[in-house]
């Protein structure tokens, strides 16, 4: 029954993609389009579920289902001209069977193998790890069973981080609308979707560069790294962060490549959803929003013109206003990070601890040389990092990593060694797909005919 929820989200996501991108949706690999539709649809369904909680204060299954189905019907109505006029988007594009060839079967087999492996790995910790049942799934339970969802922000212990945005709990709550049983398999399935979807999306977009070759194999290396699959099945929000960051960077590169403002429409929606995943997502969304806007405004070769910023801002506000409502009026202020920033912590010793932890993590055998490959990929073409087509991504990574370093070094709330031990691998996990994408993009950004 829960597959109905995922399917409805896929429909919603696909309709949104078609609405935003129009004929540009054909530039996406069919599998990449399907994964993007599912993920963005889940995000939008979660946002709609959040809005029902704001209005009704608790879980109302029929209302949530009705709101989501209404959204699908509204999008179908507004998209009708796209499908009726077949030269724009024939509905058969959703499932392009005419383009299927015999060797595609091998890719399907590979995909099924990786999904199977991820499922088996997920079964070794079916309820996730510490933060799954102490934060994300705990909040999902309160959303579903409590009389008022505000208990999450007023009464739960501060260890549950009541200030955290709730995209993942709302996704699980939306899917729970189609379940008659316990919550249990839903968080596990959702996480598998995101970790497989992220790797699959990366492989599909890299495949478009040179088919079964170096770029695609880079994605495959990441996709088959045991640590990637293991960390991805923790049932944390980090797999959502990884996926949303990857698709945001993809939309930015497509906008730079095609100079078409339709990519900014979907980018804006995606940035708003990213901001609702975690506080790290909020930071990422704000940095990307700022950097992309400045780029559009000052780029002299900008064919779309400065009015393109309006596209970005408008769609960003559609998904960011609910996040603002959540952060300003509903969630308590964050008492972990900003209040504990102390410049007296800016010491060489803390930098040394951070440096040692990063080096140990990167060269740890659990990553199967993945980080060494990524660093080699980035360093080998580092001089292209500040070319026009790469500058947005480069500046984002510089600002974001600087922010993370500052937070680790300057924040004195928890013991730094313990904090790094419990969180550094997850930070690196969430950045890995985006860095692989960026590294390949550095290599091929000047290649003729490349989609990326």
């Amino acid at each position, binding site marked *: 029954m829960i597959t109905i929820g995922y399917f409805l989200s896929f429909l919603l996501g696909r309709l949104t993609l078609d609405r935003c991108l129009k004929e540009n949706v054909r530039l996406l690999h069919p599998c990449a389009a399907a994964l993007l539709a599912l993920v963005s649809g889940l995000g939008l369904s979660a946002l709609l579920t959040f809005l029902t909680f704001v209005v009704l204060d608790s879980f109302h299954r029929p209302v949530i289902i009705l709101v989501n189905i209404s959204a699908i019907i509204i999008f179908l109505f507004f998209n009708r001209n796209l499908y009726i006029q077949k030269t724009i988007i024939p509905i058969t594009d959703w499932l392009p069977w005419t383009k299927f060839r015999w060797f595609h079967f091998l890719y399907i087999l590979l995909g099924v193998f990786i999904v199977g492996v991820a499922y088996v790995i997920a079964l070794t910790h079916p309820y996730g790890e510490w933060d799954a049942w102490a934060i994300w*799934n705990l909040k999902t339970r309160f959303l579903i069973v409590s009389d008022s969802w505000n208990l999450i922000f007023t009464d739960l212990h501060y260890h549950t981080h009541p200030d955290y945005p709730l995209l993942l709990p709302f996704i699980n709550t939306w899917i729970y609308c189609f379940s008659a049983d316990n919550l249990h398999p839903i968080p596990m399935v959702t996480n598998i979707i995101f970790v497989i979807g992220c790797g699959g999306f990366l492989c599909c977009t890299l495949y478009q560069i040179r088919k079964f070759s170096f770029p695609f194999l880079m994605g495959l290396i990441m996709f088959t790294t045991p640590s990637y699959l293991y960390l991805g099945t923790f049932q944390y929000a980090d797999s959502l962060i990884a996926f949303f960051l990857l698709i945001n960077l993809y939309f930015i590169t497509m906008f730079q490549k095609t100079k078409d403002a339709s990519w900014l429409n979907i980018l804006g929606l995606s940035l708003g959803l990213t901001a609702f995943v975690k506080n790290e997502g909020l930071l990422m969304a704000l940095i990307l929003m700022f950097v992309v806007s400045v780029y559009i405004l000052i780029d002299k070769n900008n064919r779309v013109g400065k009015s393109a910023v309006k596209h970005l801002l408008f769609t960003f506000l559609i998904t960011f206003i609910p996040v603002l409502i959540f952060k300003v009026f509903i969630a308590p202020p964050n008492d972990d990070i900003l209040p504990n920033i102390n410049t007296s912590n800016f010491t060489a010793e803390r930098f040394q601890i951070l440096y040692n932890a990063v080096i140990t993590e990167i060269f740890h055998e659990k990553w199967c040389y993945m980080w060494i490959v990524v660093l080699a990929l980035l360093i080998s073409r580092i001089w292209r990092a500040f070319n026009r087509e790469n500058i947005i991504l480069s500046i984002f990574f510089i600002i974001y990593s600087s922010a993370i370093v500052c937070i680790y070094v300057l924040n004195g709330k928890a013991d730094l060694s313990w904090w790094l031990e419990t969180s550094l691998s997850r930070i690196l996990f969430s950045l890995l797909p985006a860095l692989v994408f960026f590294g390949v993009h550095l290599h091929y950004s000047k290649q003729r005919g490349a989609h990326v």
Partner: protein
Amino acid sequence: MKKFLSLHSLLSLICLLLVANNIKYLFVFIMSRQKVLNEVYYEPGYQFHTFLPHLKGVEKAGYITDLSVNRESNDGAYLQAQYYLAPTILELEDINYPYFIIDSKNTDFIIRTIKETKARRLANNEYGQALMKRPAP
């Protein structure tokens, strides 16, 4: 021939070898956890399942422990209880509610708490956790 000896082909070959290496480690990882896969996994906080019938409809209960609940050396029992017993809110270090959970293996601590609150035990488990009820005022 030149096409096969190019840098691109060499990089693709290295990537293929790394993929094969990853698949080998995935195989080893799964095989090493075969035993674990057949185990029965209980939901986090299942050790508190006998407390659930008594806490149905109860908005808040207390949770007292002599174990560490700070971030670095926390065994997570309190949060597991909170997860399993939702929507009942468990107030840490507060026993001023009609119901409270005591989590301790220290007999002195348990006896002192019972004497202070005059509570009676409703349910307990083998991990040193018990659900207590204070007498009505």
